[in-house]
């Protein structure tokens, strides 16, 4: 077992090195650099060169990589060239927004997608089913920014029920009440995803409903409701729940548009802005953290598989 873990960790470290080289190379291969964005349009090439030298951006790319990797090994992801604060602080700050937004969105997805999907399946073929499926298709197709801007117009400008944009942390003045800032964005982000979960719930319930054991349950005289809840829904839920995992991961990356429309300080917007500004330390830092998270999750999964099933070998 120990050798399995050691081998797995070593392979993870190797993946990490390769990934870090790829991240670094790709980011520096994009044309353009941060110095003109920092200095403004008026700067001459000589001034830009001088700043480039001061920031070490004139060094050969492998030298820059080694210097960066050395700092990362000491736990230092560097400092943003723009907001002049440690990259780790920015990631921590952005992660709070992104994580809370994705979590709240998941709540809406589950609350809207699953029950409505169930109703659609139970009323399969009826006008209600057709209507709900139609609405779901529409929600899945409408662009997020359009939904977001309309949400702002209706609920923030006209009705003034919610703030239009921004998000002060729940750890600041206002505490948990600050979650109201995330209500409209999370509903916006939930709309297309809830529609997909609705369709998935409906489809898998209809699949399960055709199984022999459901027919048996009905044949032995069970009333329709217990058949649906105990036999169909429970089994159909397996497929739906496994889709929740993917959806949650997808939400983190899909959130960029929603974060932009609602001016939320999330990770997605941080990455996009840093790419536009060529704020190399921030882009590298965020991507590296994401890679590490994925690798660690994989490692944990591999190890738990091995614990559960000793026949699993490292190939």
């Amino acid at each position, binding site marked *: 077992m120990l050798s399995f873990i050691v081998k797995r960790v070593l392979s993870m470290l190797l993946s990490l090195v390769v990934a870090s080289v790829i991240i670094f190379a790709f980011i520096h291969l*994009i*044309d*353009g*650099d*941060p110095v*003109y*964005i*920092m*200095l*403004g*349009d*008026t*700067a*001459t*090439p*000589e*001034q*830009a060169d*001088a*700043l480039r030298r*001061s*920031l070490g951006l004139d060094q050969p790319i492998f030298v820059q990589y080694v210097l960066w990797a050395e700092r990362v090994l000491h736990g230092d992801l560097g400092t*943003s*060239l*723009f*907001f*002049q*604060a440690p990259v780790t*602080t*920015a990631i921590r*700050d*952005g992660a709070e927004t992104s994580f809370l937004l994705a979590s709240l969105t998941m709540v809406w997805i589950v609350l809207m997608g699953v029950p409505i999907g169930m109703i659609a399946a139970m009323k399969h073929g009826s006008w209600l089913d057709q209507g709900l499926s139609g609405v779901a298709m529409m929600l899945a197709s409408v662009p997020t*920014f359009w939904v977001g*801007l309309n949400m*702002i*117009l209706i609920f*923030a*400008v006209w009705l*003034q029920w919610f*703030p*239009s*944009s*921004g998000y*002060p942390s729940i750890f600041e003045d206002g505490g948990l009440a600050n979650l109201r800032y995330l209500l409209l964005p999370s509903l916006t982000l939930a709309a297309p995803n809830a529609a997909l979960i609705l369709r998935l719930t409906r489809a898998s319930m209809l699949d399960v409903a055709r199984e022999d054991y459901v027919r048996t349950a009905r044949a032995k005289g069970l009333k329709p409701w217990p058949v649906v809840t105990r036999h169909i829904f429970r089994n159909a839920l397996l497929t739906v729940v496994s889709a929740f995992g993917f959806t949650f991961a997808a939400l983190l990356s899909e959130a960029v548009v929603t974060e*932009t*429309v*609602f*001016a939320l*300080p*999330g990770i997605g*917007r*941080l990455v996009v*802005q840093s790419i*536009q*500004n*060529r704020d190399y330390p921030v882009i590298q830092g965020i991507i590296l953290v994401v890679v590490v998270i994925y690798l660690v999750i994989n490692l944990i999964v591999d190890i738990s598989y091995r614990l559960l099933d000793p026949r699993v070998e490292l190939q």
Partner: protein
Amino acid sequence: MNFTLKPLARSLGLAAALLLAATSLQAQNKGGTLRYAAISEPAPLDVMLTTAGVSVAIGMHIFEGLYTIDSKYVPQPMLAEGETISDDGKTIVITLRQGVKFHNGKEMTSADVVASLNRWGKFGVRGKLLMEKATSLEATGPYEVALKLSEPNGAWKSLLATIEGGPAIYPSEIADKATDKPIEQTDYIGTGPYKFGEWRPNRYVELVRFDDYVARSEPGDGYAGKRVAYFDKVQFIPVPDVGTRVSGVQAGDYDYSETISGDLFDQLAADPSVVIHRAGVPLFGLFFMNSKEGILKDNYALRRAIQMALGKDQAMRVSFGPEALWKAQGSIFPPGNFWYSEAGIEAYNQHDAAKAKEMALAAGYDGTPIKLLVSTNYQAHFDQATVFVQQLAEAGINVQMNVVDWATLLKMRGEPSQWDIFVTHHGVPPDPILVTFLNDGYPGWWTSPEITALKKEFTGTADLAKRKEVWDRIQALFYEQVPAMKVGDGYAFDIISPKLDGLGETTVIWPTFWNASFK
């Protein structure tokens, strides 16, 4: 009888005016947090080094220079008290105001000014324009500095009054150690009416009222005169989406939103929940020609043919929309400005395809593609380029657009082999010498013997009338050698909350949040 009553009437009038002024001052309330929705996160706030928009808009509340400009773009003293200039124009002695405090509590003295001007001269984005010819800069007393130049510079005061990339005064201990890298956040210490609070990435940059601020006594005018900070805090919040910036003010979440798109102008003008704040001074698009390399190098006749083909009014209508937001006029400086000139402007907006074709042939143009570098980050640039490419095609001039993002464009334009024309825009500076096409290091690299001689003549005198006459000749040469083509004057517009007071009509570029308050 009349004779005796006049002074009385005058004093009564004065008393009434003073009373009115006092009431209007009382009417402005202290307090509150002003929330400003900016188009993006700023670059570092080291205003000596940067001309980047959002950074300057924020930084000018923290830092001040020796001079600044009033509403007519005339330099006025800010941290300076006054100056004397030697007869030959080469020695400038500036006296400083006494009792001015930095945000760290230290009093500003000549040592800080010398250190700051030195740093600006060495690394400041516009420092070389003045300090390159400086033979010495000394503190001649605690509140007096002497700047000696090897030749007179007629633009010296305008250069010292420049806000973006200009010589802000930093404490000497910060200026002395500062290099060409932006100073750290902990060193954002100036003399302005607001001091730096905190910078939360992607959330806001917060400024806090500086209670020990010592204001000038003259009434506020442009950036000059008395500055009173009424807000407790000013937050600059990055809100990249224009729709959100608009809704934010309508919903009361922001008090000021910058750079709203032209297509929303009519709708917002009729909306009582917002007040339109149109810039009183334009930005103008510039299509730079490559004077260093390629097909347009030294071929002034071909450049004139290109300009002949263009209808600037069409490009302005497409890129700015309602006519209230643009003016197709050829003077580099707008009407009403001291530097406004009609020299050469007949060539500005001809839009004659047949004549352009003829001129291009005569200039030896053989259909070789002309490389146009443009970015989509500024929609107006792209719209204008698209209109011009079509107009040039009608004149048989073949243009290939290379569309990239702004960061890439800024890098590529430094490489002369990559482009023949690139697109940018320009604001109205305090002095023509700050216009980028006169900077021979700026991409475009206009260094013909004619312009070099004219520039020398232009900076060699402090006589305004003489300088204006030379500027007319420079503008005529601008239309003859076409180092760049002016597209037209575009007036950006912002929207503000009706709750704000003191942000009336303005002729300066950046909004200022001193002398403004909540109603």
